[in-house]
């Protein structure tokens, strides 16, 4: 501990324009509200058109989990850089913090879903009177009370840590004090340990238990890698949106380049885990495992290959060159494609188990996703308006602004 040493970095020297705070424009609120309305309408459509509780519940789960994952990656982005003591990300750190404010919203939505009868539509193992021999073995883990206890633990931990990390980060910004710097590092370490365990177990609980007989040890990390790629894609999209609105002028091509490298790298990492899981199950050819891919290849073959094209082939070939990672005109479409791609990934994780071969992408799926995008952007941009966009007193702020590398 270096004590309460205050640094004297004189932020005003660097750029007068950095002193910006984001104001939520009426237009943005209106657009988001319209999107949320579309979501509600399509949910109502799904109900009245008789698409069945399975499909509706699956859609709510898909979107809640997808955006929850993105929100958690926002926090993970802040935390992992805090403990790695890297400097460049300080310029975009606020976006990650803002993303994490969606965590409680996703928590409420999932709680409503599970509380209002979604569980029996989603999870075969909740039908306690019809359990077969294999599911009976799993009752110690797959039972409703324990499921809800875990649910509460996950969200309590995430919300609490997100709150503390955000608070400390803002304090650090106000005071530029080493005390807060060290505390941020400590909180980040706690979050990462907690998240490392809960990201795995929560994906077992909410996603893997849909196919209750099936199991895969890699599953949690696979879902995590999917979240990572989509989270970074969303971070880039928000950054570009802010830039287009005239904010974030301190972000230079070097920062964008690094985010582009993350998107490229995490897409490959996702593909690596996808391949590891698929190849091992394909190779060993044990029936209780291959059933998972059998249904996906038989009834969801388009989705199955689309998943690989959008999430691997597109980022791999387009983002390979240096220039494409530095240009918004390339990075934005790729980020949007990856964002859609991992939605598709979640779709092929959830739908085959819940809805089966009748699943499809119709008005409900598209409308509800638009609604979630609206809700997400409402929460994120509201949160962004609550704190200065630039953490000027962060000890690595100057490092981040003066950031330049040869590559």
């Amino acid at each position, binding site marked *: 501990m270096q004590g309460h040493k205050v640094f004297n970095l004189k932020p005003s020297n660097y750029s007068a324009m950095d002193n910006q705070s984001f104001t939520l424009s009426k237009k943005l609120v209106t657009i988001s509200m319209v999107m949320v309305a579309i979501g509600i309408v399509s949910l109502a459509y799904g109900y009245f058109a008789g698409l069945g509780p399975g499909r509706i519940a699956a859609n709510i789960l898909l979107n809640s989990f997808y955006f929850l994952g993105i929100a958690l990656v926002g926090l993970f982005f802040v935390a992992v850089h805090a403990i790695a003591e890297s400097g460049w990300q300080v310029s975009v750190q606020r976006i990650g913090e803002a993303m994490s404010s969606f965590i409680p919203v996703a928590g409420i939505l999932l709680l409503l879903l599970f509380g209002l009868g979604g569980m029996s539509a989603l999870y075969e193992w909740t039908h306690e009177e019809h359990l077969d021999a294999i599911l009976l073995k799993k009752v110690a883990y797959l039972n409703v009370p324990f499921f809800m206890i875990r649910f509460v633990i996950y969200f309590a931990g995430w919300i609490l840590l997100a709150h503390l990390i955000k608070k400390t980060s803002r304090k650090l910004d106000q005071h530029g004090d080493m005390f807060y710097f060290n505390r941020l590092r400590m909180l980040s370490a706690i979050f990462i340990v907690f998240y490392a365990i809960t990201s795995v177990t929560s994906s077992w609980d909410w996603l893997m238990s849909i196919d209750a007989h099936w199991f895969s040890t890699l599953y949690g990390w696979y879902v995590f890698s999917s979240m990572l790629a989509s989270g970074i894609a969303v971070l880039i999209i928000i950054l570009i949106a802010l830039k287009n609105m005239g904010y974030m002028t301190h972000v230079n091509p070097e920062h964008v380049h690094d985010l582009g490298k993350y998107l490229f790298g995490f897409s490959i990492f996702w593909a690596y885990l996808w*391949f590891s899981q*698929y*190849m091992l199950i*394909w*190779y060993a*050819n044990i029936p209780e495992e291959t059933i998972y891919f059998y249904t996906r290849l038989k009834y969801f073959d388009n989705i199955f290959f689309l998943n690989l094209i959008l999430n691997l082939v597109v980022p791999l070939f387009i983002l*390979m*060159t*240096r220039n494409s990672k530095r240009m918004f005109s390339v990075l934005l479409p790729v980020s949007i494609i990856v964002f859609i791609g991992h939605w598709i990934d979640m779709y092929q994780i959830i739908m085959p188990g819940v809805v089966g071969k009748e699943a499809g992408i119709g008005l409900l799926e598209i409308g509800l996703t638009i609604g979630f995008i609206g809700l997400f952007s409402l929460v994120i941009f509201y949160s962004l308006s609550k704190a200065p966009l630039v953490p000027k007193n962060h000890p690595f702020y100057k490092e981040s602004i003066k950031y330049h590398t*040869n590559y």
Partner: protein
Amino acid sequence: MNKFITAYYNDEEDLLKGIKMMKSNGVEPLDVLTPFPVHGLDKALGLKRSRLTRVAFVGGVVGGLVGFFFQAWVFTKAYPLNFGGKPFFAVPSFMPVTFEMTVLFAAFAMVIAFFVHNKLGPGAKPVIHDERVTDDRFLLVFDIWEKDEKEVSNIQMALTNAGAQGIQLKA
């Protein structure tokens, strides 16, 4: 034999300033020798970004295609054998070797191109202008083979003005 003028700096920041000053006097060095890659030197000398990355890309594509189609040929045409009920054209099985071949070819193509392009290699006989270049000196080299005396003295003047040390004329 070529003729050179050499001069050195002891610090990379002085070197960058010196190069800037000399460029404004219209004197361009033939080469700059440094003990380590100096940040900003590429820009000061106007060096273009290397295109060796393209060689790596082409090498990787060739390696990947060779790796994949060779395996496919062996298993579907040359010697189809049933291994554990797998299909002959077993794409997931081909991936590891395809990947390794891609990396191998990309890396070797690029490194070989690097050596050839720079004329570096075992037995290369470089002109060592100053043995402390690989230690702590930042050396400027000027080619004066086709230059008359006036131009030579111009270069020397410019070097003195730009604060360079140890200006030497080498025949």
